[in-house]
C-alpha cells in the first residue's frame, strides 16, 4: 500500500473510465492555504479517495455533503417555497453553528439548481462563510452548454479527476456568470477560465 506524505494510505484502485482535467485556476487557491492553520473545506459532492488524499497534506476538516444525490434536486420542481427549500438544505448540510468554511468546492452542482433552489442554497450556506471564504465552481458562458453526468475529485492542485456518476442525471439549469452572481449573492466571481466545452471555471470570494 502506498503512503502519502501525511501518512495517509493511498488506494491505488481507480476506475478505468476516470479522466483528468487540468485546472489553471485551482493552484492559485491552493497556494493561498496557510499550512499551519486548520483548513475547513466543504466538498459539495461525494467523498472520493483522491480528494481525501490531496487534502491529507493539510491540517484540515473536510466536509462531504454529497448533495448531488440529495432530494432537493427533485423537490425544486415541486411546490416548495424558497424558504422551505432553504430549510431542507440547512437540515441536510447539518453544519454545527460554529462552522466557517475556508474553501467551498461546488464543482458543477450550482447548475443542477434552478433559480429558486439556488437562492435557497445561498441562504442555507451563507451563515457558514467568512469574509475570506473562497469557492470553486463551473458555470457556463452560454445557456446551451450541457453538463455531463460526472463527479469531480482533486488528483493534484492543477489536475481534477472526473468519474462518471452512477444513477440517472438530474435536470440541469445552467447559469451564466451574470445570473450566478445574482442568485448566489454570497459570492463574487474573481476569476474565470473558459473551457473548450463551453463551461466556465470560476473562483469566487465570499461577499458578506
Amino acid at each position, binding site marked *: 500500500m502506498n503512503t502519502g506524505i501525511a501518512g495517509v494510505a493511498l488506494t491505488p484502485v481507480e476506475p478505468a473510465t476516470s479522466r483528468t482535467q*487540468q485546472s489553471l485556476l485551482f493552484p492559485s*487557491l491552493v497556494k493561498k492555504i496557510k499550512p499551519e*492553520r486548520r483548513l475547513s473545506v466543504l466538498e459539495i459532492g461525494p467523498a472520493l*479517495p483522491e480528494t481525501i488524499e490531496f487534502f491529507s497534506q493539510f491540517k484540515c*476538516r473536510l466536509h462531504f455533503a454529497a448533495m448531488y444525490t440529495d432530494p432537493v434536486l427533485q423537490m425544486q420542481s415541486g411546490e416548495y417555497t424558497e424558504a422551505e427549500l432553504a430549510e431542507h438544505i440547512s437540515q441536510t448540510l447539518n453544519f454545527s453553528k460554529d462552522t466557517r468554511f475556508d474553501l467551498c468546492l461546488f464543482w458543477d452542482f450550482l447548475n443542477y439548481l434552478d433559480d429558486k433552489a439556488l437562492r435557497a442554497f445561498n441562504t442555507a450556506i451563507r451563515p457558514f462563510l467568512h469574509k475570506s471564504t*473562497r469557492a470553486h465552481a463551473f458555470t457556463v458562458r452560454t445557456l446551451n452548454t450541457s453538463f455531463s453526468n460526472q463527479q469531480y475529485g482533486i488528483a493534484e492542485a492543477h*489536475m481534477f479527476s472526473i468519474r462518471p456518476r452512477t444513477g440517472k442525471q438530474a435536470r440541469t439549469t445552467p447559469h451564466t456568470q451574470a445570473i450566478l452572481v445574482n442568485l448566489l449573492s454570497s459570492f463574487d466571481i474573481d*476569476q474565470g477560465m473558459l473551457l473548450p466545452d463551453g463551461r466556465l*471555471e470560476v473562483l469566487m470570494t465570499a461577499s458578506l
Partner: protein
Amino acid sequence: MFEKQRNNKPEPQVPQPQQDNFAASANAPASSGRTALIGPGIRINGDISGDENLVVEGRVDGKIRLDLHHVEVGQSGCVNADITAKVIKIAGEVRGDITGTEKVIIARSGNVHGNIVAPRMTLEDGAIFKGSIDMDPGEVAKPKIANPAKKPGSTKDDKVTEAPKAVASGGVKENKSYSLSGG
C-alpha cells in the same frame, strides 16, 4: 494475533471477516491477542468496551470503545454507534462518529454516515461516506503544488485530459488579495 484466529477452526455458519488490513498492521495491540466476534445473527443494544479486538458482523446500537484495539465492521455488520478504537475498518454500515487514534479504513463495501477523526484515513474506491473528516498530518508539510503542465494537451498515464484554454471571461472582478484558512 489475527493469524491465530485464522488457524482456529471457525464455526461453519460464521463467516470469516476480512482481516487483511489488520493482519498487516505492525502495531497490533500487545495487551491481548484475542478477537471477539459479534456474529451476523447477534444484535446488541448498549455500550461495548474491553481489552481485545472486535469484529462486528451483526448489529450494534450503542457505543463501542476499545481505545487500544482494533474494530472491524464486516460486510454484514450494521453499527448505529460512535466507535473509538486504535484502528477501525468498516466494510459494512455505520451511522455514528468514528475516532481512530491510529487509522480509519472505509472499505469499498463500506457505507458510513458520520464524522471521522483520525490521523490517517483510507477511503477505498466505491465506498460511500457522508460527513466530515478531521485530518492532521502532524508536522506541517509543505503543500504539493505542481505547476500546471506546460503542454495542456498532454495526458497523464492512459487517462484522457481536458485542457483549458486561457480565455479570460468578461466582467470578472479584479483579483483580490486573500488567504485561506484565515477565518
